């Protein structure tokens, strides 16, 4: 073997040793392991539920926002050239994604098909205006754009469900912010809980750490088994939350359509959403486990 091979073999053995020690420690302190895993599990169930709720709410909100559009009613007195010019002007406004022209006849057809044949009576004497449907690149700019358009020539009226849109945006904003704050608060509570639980197990092992330092162990040599242990706690703690998440969301996904037949609210599709969220939950679990563990061993390393 070359020198490098010898060093590699040594490192591999050390890594194995750290894993063995980490597992052995979790086993030896089995009650504390159960307590820590319980803390992680509880927190992650809350976090997972909340994340699923938040992400779906966000999804629904985004869908609703995407549907927001400005309907520009063209003056009945406008000539064809003026109408075309208006269309060009609309397209030049900043942040406008698309401008679609809908003639008065198309408008009437749309009305008939959605409201019924009664409106067909107006076919001979169409009272409707020509219209432009304007969409903003970012739905949040809709209100501003609509106000700008209202001042244009040949515009009779601008229609974008004024009050509804404003309230929708405000509600979505609040919901997102509150959700984010709650999730962060939950995660921090979890880290605090876990680092405290692990601190208790480490307190019981401070003698071990002290002796390791006295016989010349490096700090990382001492830290690694705790790192492994924290990782194990985090991963074990995320098993139940992920199982609940998958089965719960599956149930919801299967049943929501029958309940929700006439509504246009739709939840995020089971695949890939659940797998992504499961991975996120696993990652959060592993992070808080490792973080809590490494944080709590830190102050015992100063000998």
């Amino acid at each position, binding site marked *: 073997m070359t020198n490098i091979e010898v060093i590699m073999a040594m490192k591999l053995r050390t890594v194995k040793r750290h894993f063995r020690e980490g597992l052995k420690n979790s086993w030896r302190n089995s009650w504390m392991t159960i307590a820590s895993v319980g803390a992680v599990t509880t927190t992650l169930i809350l976090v997972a539920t909340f994340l699923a709720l938040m992400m779906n709410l966000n999804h629904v909100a985004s869908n609703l926002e995407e549907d927001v559009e400005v309907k520009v009613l063209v003056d009945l007195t406008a000539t064809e050239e003026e109408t075309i010019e208006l269309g060009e002007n609309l397209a030049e406004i900043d942040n406008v994604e698309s401008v679609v022209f809908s003639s008065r006849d198309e408008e009437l057809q749309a009305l008939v098909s959605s409201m019924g044949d009664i409106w067909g009576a107006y076919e001979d004497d169409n009272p409707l205006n020509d219209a432009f449907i304007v969409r903003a690149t970012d739905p949040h700019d809709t209100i501003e754009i609509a106000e700008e358009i209202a001042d244009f020539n040949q515009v009779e009226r601008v229609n974008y469900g004024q009050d509804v849109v404003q309230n929708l945006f405000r509600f979505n904003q609040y919901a997102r912010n509150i959700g984010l704050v709650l999730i962060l608060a939950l995660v921090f509570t979890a880290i605090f809980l876990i680092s405290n639980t692990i601190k208790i197990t480490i307190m019981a092992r401070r003698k071990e750490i002290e002796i390791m330092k*006295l016989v*010349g162990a490096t700090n990382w040599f001492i830290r690694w088994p705790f790192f492994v242990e924290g990782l194990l706690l985090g991963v074990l703690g995320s098993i139940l939350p992920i199982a609940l998440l998958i089965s719960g969301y599956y149930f919801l996904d299967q049943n929501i359509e029958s309940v929700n037949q006439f509504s246009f609210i739709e939840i995020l599709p089971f695949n890939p959403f659940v797998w992504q969220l499961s991975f996120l939950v696993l990652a959060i679990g592993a992070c808080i486990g490792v973080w809590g563990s490494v944080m709590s061993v830190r102050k015992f390393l100063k000998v």
Partner: protein
Amino acid sequence: MIEMKDVKKTYPNGVSALNGVDISIDAGEFVYLVGQSGAGKSTFIKLIFREEIASSGSIKVDNFDLLKMKWKEVPLLRRDIGVVYQDFKLLPKMTVYENVAFALEVVEETPRNIRKRVMEVLDQVGLKNKARFIPDELSGGEQQRVSIARAIANYPKLLIADEPTGNLDPDTSWEIMKLLEEINAAGTTIIMATHSKEIVNTIKRRVIAIEGGLIVRDQHRGDYGYET
């Protein structure tokens, strides 16, 4: 092996434990450290393996300059020094074998060498047949032997014993002393803090007496020198 020049140590709470210590200890020596409780013996010992850092002066142990060394080198220094305590400091949940192997795992020895060396040192301290016991199943003298085995497993150049016989009865104490003498005879420098007048006056060695944070006596083949 150890060079101290004008070493002073003041703890953060304002207590000054050493007030200017000059000492030189050669490789292979056996040195008793005597003095009343609170005289500065423990601080002297802690400074040598850098559990504490001197406030001023200079300390050289082996080839390490203890006041200038990097924090990362501390583990390397400690691998050259074995430490034995009055209260043994064994891990109660581990077997005798594991307690000793522990010190070798830390320096990343191969499993084969660890097995070989652990059995070797256990044989040396006379506990080969008790390798599978846990510390609570052993007598005090046997536990101290385990801690000595752990201290010498890594072939240290220096062995520090902080009142190794403090918790043991006289007969057992003599057995421990015999063991320490054997280790010293094999070339390891030994510094032993003790309160035992009998041991110091019987096995004559260099005696360093500390009082009020100063070395008040340094005598080859000396006496304990205090009335107890």
